[in-house]
């Protein structure tokens, strides 16, 4: 063979091998005409909003030119386009302050996920089988319209259900406006970590149905009852910024941080003093602190105002809550209680927080009211260094009444499931957007079984998850980076915040923005529905809504409406010039002052000796981020576990049951059981078993499916007695050793480090 021939052949075979490796022969793809001018190698920064949790952090997206395989008009080709490369906090944004949490950083992988739904799908196999066939948008819209008009004709619009993740801003206006105009059932907003009990308690104590904004940067003393405020609760980035300031960012004394919980959380790990207490006794603990403050005249009963008056026995100085009387109940020595109370009173401003765990007991509402009363007597409500309630922007695109300020807890899904089980005919069409209750509700609620009875389910989901897999029709939404976004967060800043972001990139796939699909549907339905949603596109609605802000004093000054709109888009939103907290109304007045009831637990202590404590995962959050490879491979900060889940237990518990690190154990409640590897750690009470929420997906992309176990599935259907929210910390379990197992930890050797290796 001539050398020249050899080179020819090897070049040809090499090229074929490379093509096979890539899947799509690049040279056969057509190249689309780029729609925007970008200089190669130069980055531009575009504002966006993180939608992965309710905090609503403002982001900047680093966009650079790249080549992406995209489908346009049914044709696969290569498009030179702006591609997001990195997400960072927007320094001008009053909530993120230029920072982001690990979950926010990983938002890129939502857009670029290989298992995103790329085009509309119609179910082609049995329901739940995951078999779908690709259809066009025209067909998909026709199918959905025919189901909606059929119910309109038979006057059964009330049998149209709409299930979404929590909504805010104009997206909420459009979803609720659509449902109302269609005379459908009011949309249900579902999230596992909805904090409804805390919000309702705040409505009672302070007249504000919202989570508080915490001004940690000015606090001198912080008592947190199970609030994971540096990780997953409320507005973690804003709170972490404030926390850094409280620890070391100002002259004088750093603030002290006390954490009360039965399993040390990522937040509790930073505490100066970590106090383990009995599950469900946070309210008693808070009132015992208040008792000391009142009896030692470190504060007056009247100072607590309405929040104090709600609590039975408050004006008498809480005689039932003397530390010596309740120390056994709480599991904390009386001397410690008295000392903490005195320290807090002496180090004003002192603030108390209550997180989702303590509120997820049968007496969670009382726990939250008690902590509110403690805050009030500490004088921290509405004050610098305390908690304030943020003024929320509630423009409704000039359509008043389109969206109520209604908030749903997770219990609304239970009601829906019960309704379907009782009268299967009561929901004929279910529209689902972003919520995954089949994963995030206890098996005992039988949500999956209920949805299986619904004749027609349409989903706007971007991924096949446990709920979307039941859909008959999928109309995939854009990813957040491809969408117009707006948000008006309820906490995290004392400014009024109205975030806005144009798409940071063109869509990669054959998807459509959900609000635009609803507007399109409304126009096609005509009549009152079209009249109620007069905007041509979602961004039209946004422009009209934001125009009302031009007259107000804020971060944008503009000459005319177009100038204002351009500047708001460039800045990533509008925020008020002044820091303001809403003036506190009197709150709700109950018939009688609220008394404590002992927390109830499902399962007898003899048969089920352990409290079962699920907790939000720092990386996978409530499970909705388990599909992102960065979240799977990043080690959990406390356990260092990667790509999996664990059951956390005290070394004494493990020793008693002869369980070694990584052994597979079975956790059983009265309502189900699961298997997962054991993780032995000292920061948990011996009678508590803890487990992160997030893993255990049966159907959620290649990265999360069939990985670990889901603690929510075995929870008892216990509810908070006042609010009806799921009491997800009120289940008792037993554990048994199954076999040797495996646990993947990044820092497996860290616990063995010799003392001199540890930092001082």
């Amino acid at each position, binding site marked *: 063979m001539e050398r020249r021939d050899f080179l020819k052949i090897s070049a040809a075979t090499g090229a074929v091998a490379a093509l096979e490796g890539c*899947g799509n022969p690049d040279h056969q793809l057509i190249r689309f005409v780029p729609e925007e001018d970008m200089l190669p190698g130069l980055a531009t920064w575009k504002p966006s909003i993180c939608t992965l949790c309710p905090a609503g952090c403002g982001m900047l997206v680093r966009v650079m030119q790249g080549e992406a395989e995209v489908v346009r008009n049914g044709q696969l080709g290569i498009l030179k386009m702006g591609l997001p490369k990195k997400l960072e906090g927007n320094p001008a944004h009053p909530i993120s302050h230029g920072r982001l949490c690990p979950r926010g950083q*990983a938002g890129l992988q939502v857009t670029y996920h290989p298992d995103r739904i790329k085009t509309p799908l119609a179910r082609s196999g049995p329901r739940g089988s995951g078999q779908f066939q690709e259809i066009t948008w025209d067909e998909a819209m026709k199918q959905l319209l025919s189901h909606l008009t059929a119910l309109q004709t038979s006057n059964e619009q009330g049998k149209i259900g709409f299930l979404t993740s929590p909504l805010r801003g104009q997206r909420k206006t459009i979803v609720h406006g659509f449902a109302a105009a269609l005379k459908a059932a009011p949309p249900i907003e579902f999230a596992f970590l909805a904090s409804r009990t805390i919000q309702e308690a705040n409505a009672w104590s302070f007249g504000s149905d919202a989570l508080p904004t915490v001004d940690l940067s000015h606090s001198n003393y912080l008592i947190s009852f199970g609030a994971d405020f540096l990780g997953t609760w409320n507005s973690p980035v804003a709170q972490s910024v404030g926390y850094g300031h409280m620890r070391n960012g100002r002259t004088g004394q750093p603030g002290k941080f006390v954490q009360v919980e039965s399993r040390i959380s990522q937040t509790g790990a930073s505490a100066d003093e970590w106090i383990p207490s009995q599950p469900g006794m946070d309210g008693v603990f808070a009132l015992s602190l208040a008792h000391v403050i009142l009896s030692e005249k470190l504060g007056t009963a009247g100072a607590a105002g309405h929040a104090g008056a709600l609590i039975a026995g408050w004006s008498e100085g809480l005689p039932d809550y003397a530390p010596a009387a309740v120390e056994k109940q709480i599991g904390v020595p009386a001397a410690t209680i008295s000392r903490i109370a005195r320290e807090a009173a002496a180090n004003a401003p002192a603030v108390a927080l209550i997180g989702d765990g303590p509120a997820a007991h049968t007496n969670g509402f009382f726990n939250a009211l008690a902590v509110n009363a403690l805050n009030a007597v500490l004088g921290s409500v509405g004050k610098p260094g305390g908690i304030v309630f943020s003024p929320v922007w509630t423009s409704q695109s000039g359509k008043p009444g389109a969206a109520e300020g209604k908030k749903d807890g997770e219990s609304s899904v239970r009601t829906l499931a019960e309704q379907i089980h009782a009268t299967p005919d009561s929901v004929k069409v279910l529209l689902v957007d972003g919520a995954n209750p089949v994963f995030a509700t206890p098996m005992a609620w039988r949500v999956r079984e209920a949805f299986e009875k619904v004749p027609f389910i349409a989903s706007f989901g971007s991924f096949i998850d446990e709920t979307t897999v039941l859909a008959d029709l999928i109309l995939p939404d854009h990813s957040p980076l491809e969408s117009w976004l707006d948000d008006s967060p309820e906490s995290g800043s004392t400014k009024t915040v109205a975030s806005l972001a144009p798409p940071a990139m063109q869509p990669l796939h054959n998807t459509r923005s959900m609000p635009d699909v609803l507007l399109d549907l409304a126009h096609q339905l005509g009549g009152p529905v079209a009249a109620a949603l007069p905007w041509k596109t979602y961004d039209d609605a946004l422009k009209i809504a934001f125009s009302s802000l031009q007259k107000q004093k804020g971060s944008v000054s503009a000459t005319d409406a177009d100038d204002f709109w351009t500047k708001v888009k460039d800045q990533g939103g509008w925020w008020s010039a002044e820091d303001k907290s809403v003036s506190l109304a009197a709150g709700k007045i109950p018939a009688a002052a609220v008394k404590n009831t002992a927390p109830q637990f499902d399962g007898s202590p003899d048969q089920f000796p352990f409290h079962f404590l699920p907790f939000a995962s720092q990386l996978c959050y409530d499970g909705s981020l388990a599909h992102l490879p960065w979240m799977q491979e990043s080690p959990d900060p406390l356990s260092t576990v990667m790509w999996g889940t664990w059951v956390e237990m005290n070394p004494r518990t493990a020793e008693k049951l002869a369980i070694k690190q990584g052994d597979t154990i079975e956790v059983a409640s009265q309502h189900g059981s699961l298997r997962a590897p054991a993780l032995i750690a000292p920061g948990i009470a011996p009678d508590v078993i803890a487990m992160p929420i997030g893993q255990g997906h049966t159907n959620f992309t290649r990265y999360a499916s069939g990985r670990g176990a889901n603690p929510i599935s075995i929870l008892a259907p216990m509810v908070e007695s006042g609010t009806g929210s799921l009491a997800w910390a009120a289940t008792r379990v037993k554990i048994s050793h199954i076999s040797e197992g495996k646990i*993947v930890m990044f820092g497996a050797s860290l616990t063995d480090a010799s003392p001199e290796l540890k930092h001082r």
Partner: protein
Amino acid sequence: MAHQWGMVIDLDRCTGCAACVVACHAENNISTVGEDQAARGRAKHWIRVERYYEGEFPDVRVKFMPVLCQQCDAAPCEPVCPTFASYHTIEGLNGQVYNRCIGTRYCANACPYNVRFFNFYNPEWDKPLNLQLNPDVSVRSVGIMEKCTFCVQRIKASEIQAEAEKRAVKDGEIQPACVQSCSPHAMVFGDLSDPQSEVSRLARSSRGTKLLGELGTQPKVTYLQRESWHGAENA
């Protein structure tokens, strides 16, 4: 005088949230290796959060410590490299020239901080995850050692920008991805050769300590120890 890039990490502020870990992955094209490889200790995290439990229930304390390449002035990883892939840059960084690296892994053995990571396989990104790759950072192939660079691409970008504008690099202008993401501002980056820079000022703190400083590696990362609260107890 050349810049001497350094970092201060305030352990009093660090909350162990792991934002730095993910930010580093995103910025530096660090590939994920999957569960099986991770179980064999082959996951690559240029920065990690070390966690230490102290004490027994109920008197438990936890300490977090982010650990990344300490960019030592007397770096044990450099002299052992037979191909000069590990070398000391004029600005004091422990550089790694991927083209020179032949994968002896001597440097990883010599490093007392365990912050060098070997590519046992060619990195893979399931399409279209490859679109997230940062064009400013090279992708490392199989057989190559990789490590924290203090985000040298960001350092260079700022230096070039400053030069074009005929000015010096401003203090705080350069933020590696980890520093940029840190919500409680636990991490500060800057020029140690400028005594007025924030990083120099903080590095002189009485709380300052070097990780394994007794080995004589002369790290350019200074950790500020946690302070226990010493307020008015039993006031």
